[in-house]
Protein backbone atom coordinates (compact mmCIF):
# COMPACT_ATOMS: atom_id res chain seq x y z
CA UNK A 1 0.00 0.00 0.00
CA UNK A 2 3.09 2.14 0.11
CA UNK A 3 2.87 2.74 -3.60
CA UNK A 4 -0.70 3.93 -3.44
CA UNK A 5 0.24 6.45 -0.81
CA UNK A 6 3.26 7.81 -2.66
CA UNK A 7 1.17 7.97 -5.82
CA UNK A 8 -1.45 10.08 -4.08
CA UNK A 9 1.29 12.30 -2.73
CA UNK A 10 2.74 12.73 -6.20
CA UNK A 11 -0.66 13.47 -7.70
CA UNK A 12 -1.38 16.10 -5.07
CA UNK A 13 1.98 17.80 -5.48
CA UNK A 14 1.51 17.93 -9.23
CA UNK A 15 -2.05 19.22 -8.88
CA UNK A 16 -0.80 22.00 -6.62
CA UNK A 17 1.74 23.01 -9.24
CA UNK A 18 -1.00 23.42 -11.84
CA UNK A 19 -2.48 26.68 -10.51
CA UNK A 20 1.04 28.04 -9.95
CA UNK A 21 1.94 27.39 -13.58
CA UNK A 22 -1.31 28.94 -14.74
CA UNK A 23 -0.76 31.97 -12.55
CA UNK A 24 2.71 32.38 -14.01
CA UNK A 25 1.50 32.07 -17.57
CA UNK A 26 -1.24 34.61 -17.09
CA UNK A 27 1.19 36.95 -15.33
CA UNK A 28 3.59 36.54 -18.19
CA UNK A 29 0.89 37.40 -20.69
CA UNK A 30 -0.08 40.43 -18.66
CA UNK A 31 3.54 41.61 -18.45
CA UNK A 32 4.14 40.95 -22.15
CA UNK A 33 1.13 43.00 -23.12
CA UNK A 34 2.32 45.86 -20.92
CA UNK A 35 6.06 45.97 -21.51
CA UNK A 36 5.88 45.52 -25.26
CA UNK A 37 7.18 48.62 -26.97
CA UNK A 38 4.39 50.76 -28.28
CA UNK A 39 1.07 51.61 -26.78
CA UNK A 40 -1.65 48.94 -27.02
CA UNK A 41 -3.96 51.78 -27.95
CA UNK A 42 -1.70 52.48 -30.94
CA UNK A 43 -1.72 48.83 -31.83
CA UNK A 44 -5.50 48.70 -31.79
CA UNK A 45 -6.36 52.01 -33.38
CA UNK A 46 -3.31 52.57 -35.54
CA UNK A 47 -1.43 55.83 -35.11
CA UNK A 48 -3.84 57.99 -37.07
CA UNK A 49 -6.57 58.04 -34.41
CA UNK A 50 -7.35 61.36 -32.73
CA UNK A 51 -6.75 62.14 -29.07
CA UNK A 52 -10.37 61.71 -27.89
CA UNK A 53 -10.75 58.25 -29.38
CA UNK A 54 -7.43 57.24 -27.90
CA UNK A 55 -8.45 58.40 -24.42
CA UNK A 56 -11.78 56.60 -24.70
CA UNK A 57 -10.02 53.37 -25.71
CA UNK A 58 -7.54 53.83 -22.88
CA UNK A 59 -10.36 54.09 -20.32
CA UNK A 60 -12.20 51.18 -21.88
CA UNK A 61 -9.18 48.89 -21.62
CA UNK A 62 -8.61 50.01 -18.03
CA UNK A 63 -5.18 51.38 -18.89
CA UNK A 64 -5.87 54.43 -16.71
CA UNK A 65 -5.73 52.42 -13.50
CA UNK A 66 -2.51 51.93 -11.57
CA UNK A 67 -0.55 48.99 -12.95
CA UNK A 68 -0.93 46.81 -9.88
CA UNK A 69 -4.65 47.47 -9.85
CA UNK A 70 -4.85 46.42 -13.51
CA UNK A 71 -2.97 43.25 -12.69
CA UNK A 72 -5.33 42.30 -9.85
CA UNK A 73 -8.32 42.97 -12.05
CA UNK A 74 -6.83 40.85 -14.80
CA UNK A 75 -6.19 37.90 -12.46
CA UNK A 76 -9.60 38.25 -10.89
CA UNK A 77 -11.24 38.21 -14.31
CA UNK A 78 -9.36 35.10 -15.38
CA UNK A 79 -10.23 33.33 -12.12
CA UNK A 80 -13.88 33.96 -12.86
CA UNK A 81 -13.52 32.78 -16.41
CA UNK A 82 -14.02 36.30 -17.68
CA UNK A 83 -11.75 36.97 -20.63
CA UNK A 84 -13.09 40.39 -21.49
CA UNK A 85 -15.13 41.53 -24.46
CA UNK A 86 -14.07 41.54 -28.06
CA UNK A 87 -13.35 44.99 -29.44
CA UNK A 88 -15.11 44.46 -32.74
CA UNK A 89 -18.23 42.51 -31.94
CA UNK A 90 -18.60 43.47 -28.26
CA UNK A 91 -19.31 39.82 -27.49
CA UNK A 92 -17.70 38.14 -24.48
CA UNK A 93 -14.38 36.60 -25.54
CA UNK A 94 -15.20 33.49 -23.58
CA UNK A 95 -18.28 32.87 -25.68
CA UNK A 96 -16.43 33.45 -28.94
CA UNK A 97 -13.64 31.06 -27.96
CA UNK A 98 -15.98 28.36 -26.71
CA UNK A 99 -17.78 28.47 -30.05
CA UNK A 100 -14.67 27.68 -32.05
CA UNK A 101 -12.89 25.38 -29.63
CA UNK A 102 -14.91 22.19 -30.38
CA UNK A 103 -13.97 22.35 -34.08
CA UNK A 104 -10.29 22.47 -33.16
CA UNK A 105 -10.56 19.65 -30.64
CA UNK A 106 -12.45 17.46 -33.11
CA UNK A 107 -9.71 17.98 -35.71
CA UNK A 108 -6.92 17.38 -33.17
CA UNK A 109 -8.45 14.12 -31.91
CA UNK A 110 -8.93 12.78 -35.42
CA UNK A 111 -5.35 13.76 -36.28
CA UNK A 112 -3.93 12.02 -33.20
CA UNK A 113 -5.81 8.83 -34.09
CA UNK A 114 -4.39 8.89 -37.61
CA UNK A 115 -0.90 9.79 -36.39
CA UNK A 116 -0.96 6.97 -33.85
CA UNK A 117 -2.09 4.45 -36.45
CA UNK A 118 0.48 5.41 -39.12
CA UNK A 119 3.26 5.94 -36.59
CA UNK A 120 2.56 2.53 -35.06
CA UNK A 121 2.83 0.72 -38.39
CA UNK A 122 5.96 2.54 -39.54
CA UNK A 123 7.64 2.20 -36.14
CA UNK A 124 6.92 -1.52 -36.05
CA UNK A 125 8.16 -2.26 -39.58
CA UNK A 126 11.33 -0.33 -38.83
CA UNK A 127 11.96 -2.52 -35.82
CA UNK A 128 10.86 -5.84 -37.25
CA UNK A 129 13.01 -5.54 -40.36
CA UNK A 130 16.44 -4.91 -39.07
CA UNK A 131 18.17 -4.24 -42.40
CA UNK A 132 19.76 -0.84 -42.31
CA UNK A 133 17.83 0.45 -45.34
CA UNK A 134 14.38 0.15 -43.71
CA UNK A 135 15.85 1.53 -40.53
CA UNK A 136 17.28 4.49 -42.40
CA UNK A 137 14.00 5.03 -44.27
CA UNK A 138 12.20 5.20 -40.94
CA UNK A 139 14.67 7.75 -39.68
CA UNK A 140 14.31 9.79 -42.84
CA UNK A 141 10.52 9.62 -42.55
CA UNK A 142 10.80 11.13 -39.08
CA UNK A 143 12.98 14.00 -40.27
CA UNK A 144 11.00 14.76 -43.42
CA UNK A 145 7.58 14.76 -41.76
CA UNK A 146 9.01 17.19 -39.27
CA UNK A 147 10.65 19.37 -41.91
CA UNK A 148 7.59 19.84 -44.15
CA UNK A 149 5.97 23.21 -43.46
CA UNK A 150 2.49 22.19 -42.23
CA UNK A 151 0.56 24.78 -44.20
CA UNK A 152 2.44 23.89 -47.36
CA UNK A 153 1.67 20.19 -46.94
CA UNK A 154 -1.95 21.17 -46.47
CA UNK A 155 -1.93 23.19 -49.68
CA UNK A 156 -0.39 20.35 -51.67
CA UNK A 157 -2.95 17.90 -50.33
CA UNK A 158 -5.72 20.35 -51.22
CA UNK A 159 -4.34 20.70 -54.72
CA UNK A 160 -4.07 16.95 -55.28
CA UNK A 161 -7.17 15.56 -53.62
CA UNK A 162 -9.63 18.42 -53.79
CA UNK A 163 -8.69 20.39 -56.90
CA UNK A 164 -7.12 17.92 -59.33
CA UNK A 165 -8.83 14.69 -58.28
CA UNK A 166 -11.91 16.34 -56.82
CA UNK A 167 -12.48 13.52 -54.33
CA UNK A 168 -13.05 15.56 -51.21
CA UNK A 169 -14.12 19.10 -50.31
CA UNK A 170 -11.28 21.64 -50.29
CA UNK A 171 -12.03 23.21 -46.95
CA UNK A 172 -14.50 24.27 -44.31
CA UNK A 173 -16.31 22.02 -41.91
CA UNK A 174 -19.60 21.68 -43.77
CA UNK A 175 -21.05 22.85 -47.09
CA UNK A 176 -22.28 26.42 -46.79
CA UNK A 177 -25.82 26.70 -45.51
CA UNK A 178 -25.99 23.26 -43.90
CA UNK A 179 -28.38 23.06 -40.99
CA UNK A 180 -26.46 22.62 -37.75
CA UNK A 181 -28.03 21.13 -34.64
CA UNK A 182 -27.86 23.11 -31.45
CA UNK A 183 -25.52 20.95 -29.44
CA UNK A 184 -22.01 20.41 -28.17
CA UNK A 185 -20.34 21.83 -31.25
CA UNK A 186 -18.63 18.48 -31.85
CA UNK A 187 -20.33 17.79 -35.16
CA UNK A 188 -19.62 14.04 -35.27
CA UNK A 189 -21.14 13.63 -31.84
CA UNK A 190 -24.07 15.93 -32.60
CA UNK A 191 -24.96 14.23 -35.85
CA UNK A 192 -24.83 10.77 -34.30
CA UNK A 193 -26.93 11.95 -31.38
CA UNK A 194 -29.58 13.29 -33.73
CA UNK A 195 -29.39 10.23 -35.96
CA UNK A 196 -28.55 12.37 -39.01
CA UNK A 197 -26.44 10.08 -41.20
CA UNK A 198 -26.39 12.55 -44.06
CA UNK A 199 -24.81 15.19 -41.85
CA UNK A 200 -22.38 12.67 -40.40
CA UNK A 201 -21.21 11.76 -43.86
CA UNK A 202 -20.68 15.41 -44.74
CA UNK A 203 -18.79 16.04 -41.52
CA UNK A 204 -16.45 13.12 -42.08
CA UNK A 205 -15.87 14.02 -45.73
CA UNK A 206 -14.76 17.48 -44.63
CA UNK A 207 -12.66 16.13 -41.79
CA UNK A 208 -10.61 13.62 -43.80
CA UNK A 209 -8.15 15.95 -45.55
CA UNK A 210 -7.21 18.27 -42.66
CA UNK A 211 -7.03 15.41 -40.17
CA UNK A 212 -4.89 13.26 -42.47
CA UNK A 213 -2.51 16.15 -43.17
CA UNK A 214 -2.00 16.87 -39.51
CA UNK A 215 -1.91 13.17 -38.65
CA UNK A 216 0.67 12.40 -41.32
CA UNK A 217 2.97 15.19 -40.15
CA UNK A 218 2.70 14.04 -36.53
CA UNK A 219 3.12 10.35 -37.29
CA UNK A 220 6.88 10.83 -37.74
CA UNK A 221 7.34 11.72 -34.09
CA UNK A 222 5.25 8.75 -33.01
CA UNK A 223 7.00 6.22 -35.22
CA UNK A 224 10.40 7.47 -34.18
CA UNK A 225 9.77 7.40 -30.46
CA UNK A 226 8.11 3.99 -30.74
CA UNK A 227 11.11 2.65 -32.61
CA UNK A 228 13.66 4.07 -30.18
CA UNK A 229 11.76 2.65 -27.23
CA UNK A 230 11.23 -0.72 -28.87
CA UNK A 231 14.92 -0.99 -29.69
CA UNK A 232 15.77 -0.19 -26.10
CA UNK A 233 13.29 -2.72 -24.78
CA UNK A 234 14.42 -5.41 -27.21
CA UNK A 235 17.94 -5.20 -25.78
CA UNK A 236 16.76 -6.07 -22.31
CA UNK A 237 17.51 -9.33 -20.56
CA UNK A 238 13.96 -10.61 -20.39
CA UNK A 239 13.73 -10.43 -24.19
CA UNK A 240 16.93 -12.47 -24.46
CA UNK A 241 15.36 -14.94 -22.09
CA UNK A 242 12.21 -15.15 -24.18
CA UNK A 243 14.28 -15.67 -27.35
CA UNK A 244 16.28 -18.48 -25.76
CA UNK A 245 13.03 -20.21 -24.92
CA UNK A 246 12.32 -20.29 -28.65
CA UNK A 247 9.47 -17.81 -28.79
CA UNK A 248 8.92 -16.44 -32.27
CA UNK A 249 10.18 -12.99 -33.18
CA UNK A 250 6.80 -11.42 -33.89
CA UNK A 251 5.38 -12.82 -30.67
CA UNK A 252 8.24 -11.29 -28.74
CA UNK A 253 7.68 -7.90 -30.34
CA UNK A 254 3.92 -7.87 -29.86
CA UNK A 255 3.46 -9.50 -26.49
CA UNK A 256 6.74 -8.99 -24.66
CA UNK A 257 8.31 -5.76 -25.89
CA UNK A 258 5.44 -3.62 -27.12
CA UNK A 259 3.56 -3.20 -23.84
CA UNK A 260 6.71 -1.88 -22.22
CA UNK A 261 7.68 0.33 -25.13
CA UNK A 262 4.28 1.97 -25.51
CA UNK A 263 4.28 3.94 -22.29
CA UNK A 264 7.18 6.25 -23.11
CA UNK A 265 5.43 6.88 -26.42
CA UNK A 266 2.50 8.18 -24.42
CA UNK A 267 4.85 10.67 -22.77
CA UNK A 268 6.03 11.79 -26.18
CA UNK A 269 2.40 12.10 -27.22
CA UNK A 270 1.89 14.40 -24.28
CA UNK A 271 4.87 16.49 -25.28
CA UNK A 272 3.69 16.76 -28.87
CA UNK A 273 0.42 18.31 -27.78
CA UNK A 274 2.19 21.67 -27.81
CA UNK A 275 3.63 21.20 -31.28
CA UNK A 276 0.32 19.73 -32.41
CA UNK A 277 -1.26 23.03 -31.58
CA UNK A 278 1.32 24.92 -33.61
CA UNK A 279 0.83 22.74 -36.67
CA UNK A 280 -2.91 22.61 -36.18
CA UNK A 281 -3.12 26.38 -36.11
CA UNK A 282 -1.63 26.67 -39.58
CA UNK A 283 -3.46 23.70 -41.05
CA UNK A 284 -6.78 25.05 -39.81
CA UNK A 285 -6.17 28.27 -41.66
CA UNK A 286 -5.25 26.51 -44.88
CA UNK A 287 -8.39 24.39 -44.78
CA UNK A 288 -10.59 27.28 -43.57
CA UNK A 289 -11.46 25.07 -40.62
CA UNK A 290 -13.54 27.28 -38.34
CA UNK A 291 -11.53 26.57 -35.19
CA UNK A 292 -9.42 28.52 -32.78
CA UNK A 293 -6.72 29.31 -35.35
CA UNK A 294 -9.09 30.97 -37.77
CA UNK A 295 -10.31 32.98 -34.83
CA UNK A 296 -6.74 33.90 -33.91
CA UNK A 297 -5.87 34.95 -37.43
CA UNK A 298 -8.97 37.09 -37.67
CA UNK A 299 -8.25 38.65 -34.29
CA UNK A 300 -4.68 39.39 -35.35
CA UNK A 301 -5.69 41.04 -38.59
CA UNK A 302 -8.31 43.13 -36.79
CA UNK A 303 -5.92 43.81 -33.91
CA UNK A 304 -8.51 42.54 -31.45
CA UNK A 305 -6.37 42.45 -28.30
CA UNK A 306 -8.77 40.75 -25.87
CA UNK A 307 -9.35 37.82 -28.22
CA UNK A 308 -5.62 37.24 -28.81
CA UNK A 309 -5.01 37.40 -25.07
CA UNK A 310 -7.93 35.07 -24.36
CA UNK A 311 -6.78 32.50 -26.89
CA UNK A 312 -3.29 32.40 -25.42
CA UNK A 313 -4.66 31.95 -21.91
CA UNK A 314 -7.08 29.20 -22.96
CA UNK A 315 -4.54 27.26 -25.05
CA UNK A 316 -1.90 27.50 -22.33
CA UNK A 317 -4.36 26.17 -19.78
CA UNK A 318 -5.20 23.31 -22.12
CA UNK A 319 -1.55 22.44 -22.77
CA UNK A 320 -0.54 22.51 -19.11
CA UNK A 321 -3.57 20.47 -18.05
CA UNK A 322 -3.13 17.83 -20.74
CA UNK A 323 0.56 17.50 -19.86
CA UNK A 324 -0.33 17.03 -16.22
CA UNK A 325 -3.06 14.52 -17.02
CA UNK A 326 -0.69 12.40 -19.10
CA UNK A 327 2.04 12.50 -16.44
CA UNK A 328 -0.44 11.33 -13.82
CA UNK A 329 -1.83 8.65 -16.10
CA UNK A 330 1.65 7.26 -16.71
CA UNK A 331 2.51 7.34 -13.03
CA UNK A 332 -0.71 5.49 -12.38
CA UNK A 333 -0.28 2.67 -14.91
CA UNK A 334 3.48 2.26 -14.99
CA UNK A 335 5.00 0.93 -11.78
CA UNK A 336 8.53 1.69 -13.02
CA UNK A 337 8.04 5.44 -12.95
CA UNK A 338 9.75 6.93 -9.97
CA UNK A 339 8.53 10.22 -8.57
Amino acid at each position, binding site marked *: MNRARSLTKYAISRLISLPIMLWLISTLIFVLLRIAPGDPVDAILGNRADQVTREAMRTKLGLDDPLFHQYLNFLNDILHGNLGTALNTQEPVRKIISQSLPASIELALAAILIAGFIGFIIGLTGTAKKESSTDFAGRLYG*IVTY*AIPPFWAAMLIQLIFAVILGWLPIGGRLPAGTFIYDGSGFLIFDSIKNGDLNLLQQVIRHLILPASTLGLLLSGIFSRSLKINLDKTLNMDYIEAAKSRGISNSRIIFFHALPNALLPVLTIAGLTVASLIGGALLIEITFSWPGIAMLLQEAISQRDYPIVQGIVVVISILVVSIGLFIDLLIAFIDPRVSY
Partner: protein
Amino acid sequence: MLRWGLYLLAIYLLTAFLTPLFIKFGFLPEPQEGLGNPIYSPPSIDHWCGTDRLGRDVCVRTLEGSRVAIIIVLLAVTLAVIIGIPLGILSGYLGGMVDRVIVLFMETLYTIPVLLLSVVIAFLLGRGIFNAAIALCVVYTPQYFRVVRNQTAQAKSELYVEAARVIGAGPFWIMGKYLLRNVVSSVPVLLTLNAADAVLVLGGLGFLGLGLPETIPEWGSDLNLALDAVPVGIWWTALFPGIAMLGLVLAFSFIGEGLEIIVNLNELNESNT
Protein backbone atom coordinates in the same frame (compact mmCIF):
# COMPACT_ATOMS: atom_id res chain seq x y z
CA MET B 1 23.82 12.81 -42.98
CA LEU B 2 25.96 15.68 -41.77
CA ARG B 3 27.51 15.95 -45.23
CA TRP B 4 24.13 16.14 -46.99
CA GLY B 5 23.08 18.89 -44.65
CA LEU B 6 26.25 20.90 -45.18
CA TYR B 7 25.97 20.61 -48.98
CA LEU B 8 22.34 21.73 -48.87
CA LEU B 9 23.12 24.64 -46.58
CA ALA B 10 26.02 25.67 -48.84
CA ILE B 11 23.61 25.81 -51.78
CA TYR B 12 21.28 28.04 -49.79
CA LEU B 13 24.09 30.33 -48.66
CA LEU B 14 25.32 30.62 -52.23
CA THR B 15 21.80 31.41 -53.44
CA ALA B 16 21.31 33.99 -50.74
CA PHE B 17 24.60 35.62 -51.68
CA LEU B 18 24.29 35.47 -55.47
CA THR B 19 20.62 36.33 -56.05
CA PRO B 20 20.92 40.04 -55.14
CA LEU B 21 23.99 40.28 -57.39
CA PHE B 22 22.19 38.64 -60.29
CA ILE B 23 19.25 40.97 -59.82
CA LYS B 24 21.55 43.97 -59.70
CA PHE B 25 23.26 43.05 -62.94
CA GLY B 26 19.99 42.25 -64.65
CA PHE B 27 20.31 38.48 -65.02
CA LEU B 28 17.19 38.09 -62.92
CA PRO B 29 14.10 40.35 -62.82
CA GLU B 30 13.32 42.51 -59.78
CA PRO B 31 11.33 40.47 -57.20
CA GLN B 32 8.86 43.31 -56.60
CA GLU B 33 8.26 44.21 -60.23
CA GLY B 34 5.42 42.54 -62.03
CA LEU B 35 3.34 45.18 -63.75
CA GLY B 36 4.57 44.33 -67.21
CA ASN B 37 4.05 40.60 -66.79
CA PRO B 38 0.92 38.51 -67.25
CA ILE B 39 -0.57 37.54 -63.90
CA TYR B 40 -0.78 33.91 -62.80
CA SER B 41 1.04 32.69 -65.88
CA PRO B 42 2.16 29.07 -65.56
CA PRO B 43 5.86 28.17 -65.69
CA SER B 44 7.37 29.04 -69.06
CA ILE B 45 10.71 29.94 -70.64
CA ASP B 46 10.32 33.57 -69.53
CA HIS B 47 9.25 32.76 -65.99
CA TRP B 48 10.57 29.36 -64.97
CA CYS B 49 8.31 29.08 -61.95
CA GLY B 50 5.46 31.19 -63.33
CA THR B 51 4.15 34.48 -61.97
CA ASP B 52 1.96 35.31 -58.99
CA ARG B 53 -1.23 37.33 -58.82
CA LEU B 54 0.65 40.60 -59.23
CA GLY B 55 2.66 39.24 -62.12
CA ARG B 56 5.81 38.96 -60.03
CA ASP B 57 8.28 36.23 -60.89
CA VAL B 58 7.90 33.31 -58.49
CA CYS B 59 11.47 32.07 -59.08
CA VAL B 60 13.15 35.30 -58.10
CA ARG B 61 10.94 35.76 -55.10
CA THR B 62 11.67 32.24 -53.93
CA LEU B 63 15.42 32.65 -54.42
CA GLU B 64 15.39 36.06 -52.77
CA GLY B 65 13.42 34.64 -49.83
CA SER B 66 16.33 32.43 -48.83
CA ARG B 67 18.41 35.46 -47.85
CA VAL B 68 16.02 36.94 -45.29
CA ALA B 69 15.16 33.51 -43.96
CA ILE B 70 18.81 32.68 -43.28
CA ILE B 71 19.56 36.13 -41.83
CA ILE B 72 16.59 36.11 -39.46
CA VAL B 73 17.03 32.54 -38.34
CA LEU B 74 20.73 32.97 -37.63
CA LEU B 75 20.09 36.28 -35.89
CA ALA B 76 17.38 34.72 -33.72
CA VAL B 77 19.38 31.66 -32.76
CA THR B 78 22.50 33.72 -32.06
CA LEU B 79 20.49 36.04 -29.82
CA ALA B 80 19.04 33.04 -28.02
CA VAL B 81 22.53 31.62 -27.47
CA ILE B 82 23.92 34.96 -26.29
CA ILE B 83 21.13 35.38 -23.77
CA GLY B 84 20.44 31.77 -22.84
CA ILE B 85 23.95 30.47 -22.12
CA PRO B 86 25.24 33.19 -19.75
CA LEU B 87 21.90 33.27 -17.98
CA GLY B 88 21.98 29.49 -17.63
CA ILE B 89 25.51 29.46 -16.24
CA LEU B 90 24.75 32.31 -13.88
CA SER B 91 21.54 30.75 -12.66
CA GLY B 92 23.06 27.30 -12.25
CA TYR B 93 26.17 28.65 -10.51
CA LEU B 94 24.45 31.01 -8.10
CA GLY B 95 21.62 28.64 -7.17
CA GLY B 96 19.20 29.63 -4.42
CA MET B 97 16.38 32.08 -4.84
CA VAL B 98 17.67 33.79 -8.01
CA ASP B 99 18.01 30.42 -9.69
CA ARG B 100 14.53 29.37 -8.73
CA VAL B 101 12.89 32.53 -10.00
CA ILE B 102 14.70 32.42 -13.34
CA VAL B 103 13.96 28.71 -13.74
CA LEU B 104 10.26 29.22 -13.06
CA PHE B 105 10.12 32.04 -15.57
CA MET B 106 11.91 30.05 -18.25
CA GLU B 107 9.83 26.94 -17.61
CA THR B 108 6.70 29.02 -18.07
CA LEU B 109 7.97 30.35 -21.39
CA TYR B 110 8.82 26.79 -22.33
CA THR B 111 5.30 25.51 -21.69
CA ILE B 112 3.60 27.89 -24.10
CA PRO B 113 3.44 26.37 -27.59
CA VAL B 114 6.28 27.72 -29.74
CA LEU B 115 4.20 29.14 -32.54
CA LEU B 116 1.70 30.71 -30.19
CA LEU B 117 4.39 32.48 -28.16
CA SER B 118 6.12 33.89 -31.20
CA VAL B 119 2.76 34.89 -32.67
CA VAL B 120 2.01 36.89 -29.54
CA ILE B 121 5.42 38.58 -29.56
CA ALA B 122 5.28 39.32 -33.28
CA PHE B 123 1.75 40.64 -32.84
CA LEU B 124 2.97 43.02 -30.15
CA LEU B 125 6.13 44.13 -31.94
CA GLY B 126 4.76 44.44 -35.45
CA ARG B 127 6.42 43.41 -38.70
CA GLY B 128 10.11 43.76 -39.33
CA ILE B 129 13.32 41.77 -39.70
CA PHE B 130 14.59 42.48 -36.22
CA ASN B 131 11.15 42.06 -34.63
CA ALA B 132 10.73 38.66 -36.24
CA ALA B 133 14.15 37.66 -34.95
CA ILE B 134 13.18 38.71 -31.43
CA ALA B 135 9.88 36.82 -31.63
CA LEU B 136 11.86 33.68 -32.52
CA CYS B 137 14.63 34.31 -30.01
CA VAL B 138 12.17 34.43 -27.09
CA VAL B 139 11.03 30.94 -28.02
CA TYR B 140 14.48 29.36 -28.14
CA THR B 141 16.23 31.10 -25.24
CA PRO B 142 14.57 28.86 -22.61
CA GLN B 143 15.92 25.76 -24.38
CA TYR B 144 19.57 26.88 -24.07
CA PHE B 145 18.90 28.07 -20.58
CA ARG B 146 17.51 24.67 -19.54
CA VAL B 147 20.37 22.64 -20.93
CA VAL B 148 23.15 24.94 -19.77
CA ARG B 149 21.66 25.56 -16.35
CA ASN B 150 21.27 21.87 -15.56
CA GLN B 151 24.76 21.04 -16.72
CA THR B 152 26.23 23.93 -14.74
CA ALA B 153 24.40 22.87 -11.61
CA GLN B 154 25.94 19.43 -12.05
CA ALA B 155 29.44 20.60 -12.95
CA LYS B 156 29.49 23.12 -10.10
CA SER B 157 30.15 20.46 -7.50
CA GLU B 158 32.93 18.79 -9.51
CA LEU B 159 36.38 18.69 -8.05
CA TYR B 160 37.99 20.99 -10.60
CA VAL B 161 35.61 23.82 -9.74
CA GLU B 162 36.31 23.29 -6.06
CA ALA B 163 40.02 23.41 -6.85
CA ALA B 164 39.67 26.62 -8.84
CA ARG B 165 37.85 28.20 -5.96
CA VAL B 166 40.53 27.09 -3.51
CA ILE B 167 43.29 28.71 -5.54
CA GLY B 168 41.32 31.94 -5.37
CA ALA B 169 39.44 32.15 -8.67
CA GLY B 170 36.50 34.56 -8.57
CA PRO B 171 33.01 33.46 -9.59
CA PHE B 172 33.12 35.13 -13.02
CA TRP B 173 36.50 33.60 -13.78
CA ILE B 174 35.17 30.19 -12.83
CA MET B 175 32.04 30.62 -14.90
CA GLY B 176 33.86 31.92 -17.96
CA LYS B 177 36.94 29.75 -17.82
CA TYR B 178 35.77 26.42 -16.46
CA LEU B 179 32.01 26.09 -16.61
CA LEU B 180 31.41 27.65 -20.02
CA ARG B 181 33.84 25.28 -21.75
CA ASN B 182 32.22 22.34 -20.09
CA VAL B 183 28.66 23.10 -21.05
CA VAL B 184 29.03 24.37 -24.62
CA SER B 185 29.46 20.90 -26.12
CA SER B 186 25.71 20.34 -26.21
CA VAL B 187 25.00 23.67 -27.87
CA PRO B 188 25.76 22.96 -31.57
CA VAL B 189 23.17 20.19 -31.86
CA LEU B 190 20.51 22.28 -30.19
CA LEU B 191 21.49 25.27 -32.30
CA THR B 192 21.04 23.58 -35.66
CA LEU B 193 17.83 21.82 -34.63
CA ASN B 194 16.48 25.14 -33.41
CA ALA B 195 17.49 26.79 -36.66
CA ALA B 196 15.46 24.16 -38.51
CA ASP B 197 12.50 24.80 -36.27
CA ALA B 198 12.94 28.56 -36.59
CA VAL B 199 12.64 28.39 -40.39
CA LEU B 200 9.25 26.71 -39.92
CA VAL B 201 8.07 29.14 -37.27
CA LEU B 202 9.22 32.12 -39.32
CA GLY B 203 7.27 30.70 -42.25
CA GLY B 204 4.27 30.35 -39.95
CA LEU B 205 4.57 33.96 -38.85
CA GLY B 206 4.77 35.12 -42.44
CA PHE B 207 1.82 32.90 -43.32
CA LEU B 208 -0.21 34.56 -40.56
CA GLY B 209 0.79 38.00 -41.81
CA LEU B 210 3.10 38.69 -38.88
CA GLY B 211 6.47 38.31 -40.54
CA LEU B 212 8.26 40.90 -42.61
CA PRO B 213 7.14 44.14 -44.25
CA GLU B 214 5.46 43.61 -47.61
CA THR B 215 8.43 45.04 -49.50
CA ILE B 216 10.60 42.05 -48.61
CA PRO B 217 9.91 38.79 -50.45
CA GLU B 218 9.28 36.06 -47.90
CA TRP B 219 8.25 32.42 -48.30
CA GLY B 220 5.58 32.41 -45.61
CA SER B 221 3.63 35.40 -46.85
CA ASP B 222 4.03 34.31 -50.48
CA LEU B 223 2.48 30.99 -49.51
CA ASN B 224 -0.38 32.81 -47.86
CA LEU B 225 -0.99 34.70 -51.11
CA ALA B 226 -0.81 31.40 -52.95
CA LEU B 227 -3.52 29.95 -50.73
CA ASP B 228 -6.20 32.03 -52.48
CA ALA B 229 -5.15 30.58 -55.83
CA VAL B 230 -5.20 26.92 -54.75
CA PRO B 231 -8.94 26.34 -55.37
CA VAL B 232 -8.56 27.24 -59.06
CA GLY B 233 -5.67 24.84 -59.45
CA ILE B 234 -2.77 27.33 -59.62
CA TRP B 235 -0.02 25.19 -58.18
CA TRP B 236 3.17 27.01 -59.08
CA THR B 237 2.80 29.87 -56.59
CA ALA B 238 2.39 27.31 -53.81
CA LEU B 239 4.91 24.69 -54.87
CA PHE B 240 8.20 26.58 -55.21
CA PRO B 241 8.38 28.67 -52.01
CA GLY B 242 7.36 25.54 -50.09
CA ILE B 243 10.12 23.44 -51.64
CA ALA B 244 12.61 26.17 -50.76
CA MET B 245 11.43 26.17 -47.14
CA LEU B 246 11.47 22.38 -46.91
CA GLY B 247 15.04 22.29 -48.26
CA LEU B 248 16.37 24.75 -45.73
CA VAL B 249 14.66 22.98 -42.82
CA LEU B 250 16.07 19.67 -44.08
CA ALA B 251 19.55 21.18 -44.34
CA PHE B 252 19.54 22.29 -40.71
CA SER B 253 17.87 19.05 -39.53
CA PHE B 254 20.44 16.88 -41.29
CA ILE B 255 23.30 18.88 -39.81
CA GLY B 256 21.72 18.65 -36.36
CA GLU B 257 21.14 14.90 -36.64
CA GLY B 258 24.66 14.38 -37.94
CA LEU B 259 26.18 16.40 -35.11
CA GLU B 260 24.11 14.49 -32.59
CA ILE B 261 25.51 11.19 -33.83
CA ILE B 262 29.05 12.58 -33.54
CA VAL B 263 28.47 13.93 -30.03
CA ASN B 264 26.98 10.61 -28.92
CA LEU B 265 29.96 8.72 -30.37
CA ASN B 266 32.39 11.04 -28.61
CA GLU B 267 30.64 10.53 -25.30
CA LEU B 268 30.71 6.80 -25.86
CA ASN B 269 34.45 6.92 -26.54
CA GLU B 270 35.10 9.06 -23.50
CA SER B 271 33.20 6.76 -21.21
CA ASN B 272 35.09 3.79 -22.64
CA THR B 273 38.56 5.20 -22.05
